[in-house]
């Protein structure tokens, strides 16, 4: 699913649970949001 707009902070944390949020790339990806108009439903 491409569901950023409906994903809560807790859900996002859970999805990133195997990644190290101290790593700069992971931190950036955790905080990254696509422009809303580019989000399309996926599944």
């Amino acid at each position, binding site marked *: 699913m491409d569901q950023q707009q409906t994903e809560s902070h807790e859900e996002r944390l859970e999805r990133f649970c*195997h990644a190290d949020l101290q*790593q700069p790339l992971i931190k950036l990806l955790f905080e*990254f949001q696509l422009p809303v108009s580019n989000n399309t439903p996926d*599944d």
Partner: protein
Amino acid sequence: MTLSATSLVNRSLELVSPPSTYTRLDTLIQDPDSAIDDFASVINTDPALATRLLKIVNSPFYGFPSQINTISRAITIIGTRELNHLVLATSVLNTFSGIPSTLINMDSFWRHSLACAMTARQLANTCGQRGTERLFTAGLLHNIGSLVMYQSLPELAREAINSARFGHETIFEAEQRIIGFDHSEVGEALALAWRLPESLVDTIRHHHCPAEAKIAALDVAIVHVADIMVSAVPFGHAGDAHVPPLDPNAWQLLGLDLNIVPQILTQISLQLDSLTATMLKT
């Protein structure tokens, strides 16, 4: 007899035969006397493949300034090896069938794989790599071992997916524990059985552990990073929706600035739907 990744692939080869057009073109590439017309003739024997290839090379993702109307012209512009990577990518999309929709949403699987392919190619271009279609193919096929598992071991694969979804282990750890090997080992066995290029075998095998790459360290690092980038957004998923762990040395090996990441992901988001429609539909 204990099941191994290789024995699983050997017993699955009747279901997933090697892409024949790719194999024939690969033979022609090795022949110094072959000409562009020879390549075009092989591709044109499969009109659906030829049509799809032309749609792909004319898509906004490729961004060629003028229309490419024939396979011969595509070969002239892109090159035989590069086009054959696209032939492989396009052929594999239609190889797997019969995978239960209750196990994996295939649209979501290919959306993730295509986004990884596009991102890997884009990262490679940004790194100044040449011949980046191999990265597109590597990104598209990095999880191909999962499809063999879903097709041939659906119940064990389901157990691994559920364990990764509700437990605290990665999908490859769950596969190792439940099945005895993971999707990257199955992918490697399939790529070897299909006689795919060594760099592609290395990338499929080590996309979760780039430090163990044998011959294509940069390619492996690029696909490792691309997989994590598209998992983070996320653009679909391949069974497990979690973001895999990053090997920071892989990102360092690319030598890129972090600022490029949002640019690439935004660009992929604009092009993914149309390329997915082009590649997945006749």
